């Protein structure tokens, strides 16, 4: 068993007689599990994207019959915004960025044939799928899906008399808790694999940045989610057994939930951010043919960000009545955490400087990540300062700010990663022209949605208002015009998305066959076949150097793969 040979019979299909169901639904192969996570995540992204279309139409044209939905009632509106947010974070960003890319890249980039626990890996996806089914089922229960925002604040979430969703609120919590269990199992697998199954010769400083980022993200998730799991159990007991953990009338404390939630919720931002930063690092170095400007700086700042991310959570609670002395501390910590992130951005820009840049689709996505995320980060400084936050709290400024962070993470990061690794995953090249058209439509559309919303937020537009006509001071022509512009930009952006699906399908069917290493990249996954067979390599590779040796002087080629002996 301990030999370094995979039997030659383990070619493309380990068991040719295996049924489709066994091969694709019950597989323990890390690559198949990546596709399961990715397709489930993308299917739910379509659901959450549809939700955003419905409520944006209601925002811009209150009271209209939205095509495909009908009249939006206040309760439906609450359910739509709640589940849009929850799905995009828990059922799109997490499964696609961490689970799908982690599953695909970790074994291939560290030169292993699979995850260390393939069956736990399969179980992790199955629990994740169950969590998604529970969430979708909650939409069809009496009262409909939960509508108390993804933050699930009690007492609104605890009492059906308040939230009017007796089933929806409990099922929502159960779905979230199941999703956490799935990612804890997956995360333990990722961390153990990256620590223990590296190819001979691969030291900690030879690990590609994206693998580091996914592993650090898994550790952050593991360290932050525990209190919220405990809190979720307490909240479910409040809902179903009528305990009073969060009920102030009976000795409980609703602010406690906010602490438990945001102790997880803020590190969670970095849990999804770090993998996206890792993906862009791989693309930027490969496409500018330069060594990553400062590998150890990126690694150390990522770890530093992770540690600091546990000290900023109460900046979400500045208006919740927390002690002003505590608000001072959290303001300072929040401003400090922008330093390591800024440092990473500078490293990326320094990597680009003087490189010979190829502006293809993955590179456009990677560059737009830097652009949009910088806007997201800079606007965060306003919100991190408690004084400014008291005015801006719960306005559209906050909403635009976190979309400028989450959109680059979840959407740009995913498109960047998929377009970069598509040749490896599918064995076909993707059409670059269609990819660029889709990129520009999405990028311009996105900015068109959220730049106006920064302005409406600064003008005092509150986030959770269902119909602004009830608030004359918010129903001015300027604000209405900006809201309509945002909605039209959303329609513009959504109109470009079928191009991507068309591109994926036609490339899969008729695309140019991909060579092993289409981007002349250094990391190990590019030395396997495209797509890699079960077991990844006939003989597992050995590593001789770090992953970013591009344009090394005195070499005829401008890249130097990790597995080539000196």
């Amino acid at each position: 068993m301990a030999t370094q040979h995979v039997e030659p019979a383990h070619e493309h299909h380990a068991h040719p007689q295996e049924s489709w169901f066994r091969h694709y639904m019950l597989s323990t192969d890390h690559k198949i599990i990546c596709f399961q996570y990715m397709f489930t995540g993308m299917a739910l992204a379509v659901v959450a994207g549809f939700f955003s279309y419905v409520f944006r139409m209601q925002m811009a044209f209150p009271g209209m019959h939205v095509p495909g939905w009908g009249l939006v009632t206040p309760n439906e509106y609450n359910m739509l915004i709640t589940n849009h947010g929850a799905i995009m974070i828990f059922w799109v960003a997490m499964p696609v960025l961490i689970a799908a890319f982690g599953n695909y890249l970790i074994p291939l980039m560290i030169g292993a044939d699979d995850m260390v626990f393939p069956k736990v890996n399969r179980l992790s996806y199955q629990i994740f799928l169950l969590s998604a089914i529970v969430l979708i089922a909650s939409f069809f229960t009496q009262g409909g899906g939960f509508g108390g925002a993804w933050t699930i604040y009690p007492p609104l979430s605890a009492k059906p008399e308040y939230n009017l969703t007796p089933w929806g609120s409990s099922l929502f919590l159960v779905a979230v808790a199941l999703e956490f269990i799935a990612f804890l199992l997956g995360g333990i697998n990722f961390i153990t694999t990256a620590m223990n199954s590296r190819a001979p010769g691969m030291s900690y400083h030879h690990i590609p940045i994206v693998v580091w980022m996914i592993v650090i993200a898994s550790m952050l998730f593991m360290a932050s989610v525990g209190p919220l799991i405990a809190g979720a159990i307490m909240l479910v007991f409040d809902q179903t057994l009528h305990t009073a953990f969060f009920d102030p009338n009976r000795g409980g404390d609703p602010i406690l939930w906010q602490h438990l939630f945001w102790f997880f919720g803020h590190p969670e931002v970095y849990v999804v951010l770090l993998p996206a930063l890792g993906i862009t690092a791989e693309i930027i170095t490969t496409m500018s043919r330069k060594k990553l400007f400062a590998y150890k700086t990126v690694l150390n700042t990522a770890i530093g960000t992770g540690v600091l991310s546990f000290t900023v959570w109460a900046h979400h609670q500045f208006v919740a009545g927390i002690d002003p002395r505590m608000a001072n501390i959290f303001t300072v910590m929040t401003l400090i955490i922008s330093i390591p992130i800024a440092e990473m951005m500078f490293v990326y820009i320094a990597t680009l400087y003087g490189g010979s840049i190829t502006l293809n689709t993955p590179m456009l996505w990677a560059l737009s990540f830097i652009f949009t995320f910088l806007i997201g980060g800079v606007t965060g400084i306003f919100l991190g300062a408690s004084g400014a936050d008291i005015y801006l709290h719960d306005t559209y400024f906050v909403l635009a700010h976190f979309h400028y962070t989450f959109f680059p993470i979840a959407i740009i990061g995913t498109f960047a990663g998929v377009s970069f690794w598509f040749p490896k995953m599918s064995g076909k090249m993707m059409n670059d022209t269609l990819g660029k058209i889709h990129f520009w439509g999405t990028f311009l559309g996105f900015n068109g949605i959220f730049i106006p919303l920064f302005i409406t937020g600064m003008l005092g537009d509150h986030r959770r208002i269902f119909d602004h006509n009830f608030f004359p001071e918010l129903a001015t022509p300027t604000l209405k015009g900006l809201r309509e512009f945002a909605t039209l930009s959303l329609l513009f952006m959504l109109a470009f998305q079928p191009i991507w699906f068309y591109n994926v399908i036609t490339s899969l069917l008729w695309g140019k066959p991909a060579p092993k290493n289409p981007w002349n990249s250094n990391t190990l996954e590019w030395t396997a076949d495209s797509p890699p067979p079960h077991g990844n390599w006939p003989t597992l590779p050995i590593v001789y150097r770090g992953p970013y040796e591009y344009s090394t002087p005195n070499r005829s080629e401008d890249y130097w793969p990790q597995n080539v002996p000196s």
Partner: protein
Amino acid sequence: MSSARPIATTRSSAGMPTGRLAVWWVIASEIVIFGGILASYIMHRLAHDAFAAQAAHTNTWIGAFNTFVLLTSSLSAVMAHRAADHGDAKGAANYLWLTVGGGATFLIVKAFEWTHEIREGFTITSSTFWSFYYTAAGIHASHVLAGMVLMSYIALDAAKGREMQRVEYVGLYWHFVDIVWIFLFPLLYIAK
């Protein structure tokens, strides 16, 4: 479906068997779960003097007896590990079954204790102290039960000399469950 382990599982770049490394990470993730509930409890307790009066109704002697049972079962888990290291398959399995017995005793005592308390009128909704009492001890008890199930499964294998390395891993988990109780016992029973 072939159940051969991937080569990845047999490597140990970090210098530790994969199974043991993974159990440590499981324990790390569990620490924060219990940490969350204990921190919430302590915050409530510091803010409400009424907790002490409620806590006075818990039975310290039963709690102490259960602490003794659980600590003793950790000893037999260590004996199982030692037997496994010496290649004594029968001995390892028997000590594991003894540990399972310790867990069962703990749960049976707990069942009588809770029945008595509920009959006295102290239910999960009586006050926040009792809510924490049943929730924290309940989550802990579910971990004891999970440990017993895992240990029985591993004991059946170990008796035939299979997967002997797992005897140590399940022991690590069992010690962790023990240590959680060492935090719960003073917080729920002694501090009155």
